[in-house]
């Protein structure tokens, strides 16, 4: 008995260490992507604030690049405005029916966009994520899609009042179905784990062909609207399964320079979800 007590006292630091390691592993395995605690991630308010400060300092170094990007974006929009103006003019000048183009039948869209800024990114391993500066109070909810100016970017994982954490395409947990534009066969987009510029489009039928540079867009998705750009096909890669084709795609979103994004709010998400749950039961 005395020996046992002696043993316990002598090795008590091992016991403490074992308990702490056990607790850590509990955290590792219990953080299922959907019930992840807000307190132990960067959606936490304190951590979020730290990151916003660090981001403010950082953003100065990106000003020049962002300026060029904004200018380009502006130019593109300007062109679009011109085209639209011309269209309106054409209709307005040669037809008395112009009224039908100017009536107030503004249909409400299924999707609503919430602009947000990326305040932190972590792209150094398999566990990539981004933190945004919009949260619950601005209407962001888990499972909403996130897009950048050039393509889809990720999906909201957890939200706090003012911040939210995004799982980007370049995370092994991210899945979305995609297809070649103008094709009817969809496959799934999976990230390979190394290069954040590339992902793979897998599980396409054997007969599916491609041209380099073909656009890959979203197909059936509860999170993204149809036909949003994901990336562009680069080359064919060996598929794990011989029954399918797999392509490497260059992602449209440049995760190295991502700063401004938009969160997609789907007005019918809850309705659809409820309906499908009933069917599943």
């Amino acid at each position: 008995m005395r020996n046992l007590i002696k043993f316990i006292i002598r090795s008590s630091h091992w016991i403490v260490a074992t308990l702490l390691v056990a607790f850590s592993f509990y955290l590792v395995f219990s953080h299922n992507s959907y019930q992840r605690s807000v307190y132990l991630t960067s959606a936490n308010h304190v951590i979020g604030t730290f990151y916003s400060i660090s981001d403010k300092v950082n953003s100065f170094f990106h000003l020049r690049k962002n300026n060029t990007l904004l200018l380009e974006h502006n130019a593109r929009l300007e062109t679009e405005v011109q085209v639209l103006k011309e269209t309106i003019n054409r209709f307005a000048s040669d037809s008395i029916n112009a009224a039908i183009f100017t009536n107030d039948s503004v249909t409400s869209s299924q999707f609503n966009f919430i602009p947000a800024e990326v305040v932190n990114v972590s792209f150094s391993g398999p566990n990539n994520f981004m933190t945004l500066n919009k949260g619950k109070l601005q209407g962001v909810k888990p499972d909403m899609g996130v897009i950048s100016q050039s393509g889809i970017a990720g999906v909201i994982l957890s939200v706090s009042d003012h911040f939210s954490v995004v799982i980007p395409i370049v995370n092994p947990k991210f899945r979305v179905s995609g297809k070649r534009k103008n094709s009817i066969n969809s496959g799934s987009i999976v990230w390979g784990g190394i290069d954040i510029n590339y992902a793979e489009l897998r599980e396409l039928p054997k007969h599916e062909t491609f041209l380099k540079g073909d656009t890959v867009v979203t197909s059936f998705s509860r999170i993204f609207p149809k036909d949003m750009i994901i990336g562009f096909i680069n080359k064919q890669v060996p598929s794990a399964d011989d029954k399918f084709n797999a392509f490497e795609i260059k992602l449209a979103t440049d995760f190295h320079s991502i700063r401004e994004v938009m969160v997609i709010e789907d007005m019918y998400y809850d309705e659809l979800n409820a309906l499908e749950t009933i069917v599943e039961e």
Partner: protein
Amino acid sequence: MKTGIIKDIILFLLLIALQVFLLDRINIFGVATPILYIYFLIKMPLGSNRFYVIISGFLLGLIIDIFMNTPGMNAAATTVVAAFREPIIKLIYTRDAYDELTPSMNTDSKSFIRLSISLVLLHQILLFLIESFTLFNIELTLLRIVSSSILTLLIIFAVDALFGKKSVVSEF
């Protein structure tokens, strides 16, 4: 004793800030990321209280985890390293090395390098194994471990050779 704790706290916070805001964003060739915060455990005096080492190691890992959104991973790896620090020191240092001695590049560089290599390697192996439990192939994980360890060790030796000197001078 008091100044020792304050020094520890400053180093603790400094390493976390450095890791989270700077080093975590470095990713050479897509594989090597320096993980410097383990320097805190290397720099503790040889005879530090075991509980103090283990609990501060756990807290260090946990705070890094919270910042990097990886609950538990760094905490688990760092706690194990902290627990094995004493047995490893017993292997490397002679029995007559006195308890207040802080491992340093400038006093006993051979032992310091051996201690750093063992702790960093152990830490990296644990970290990357936990991180890639189910997801990735073994070659990539090994490459990550080796390249990140080398990068981390280079930074540790450089930092210690540069800043370690000051504390030795001030002790005289």
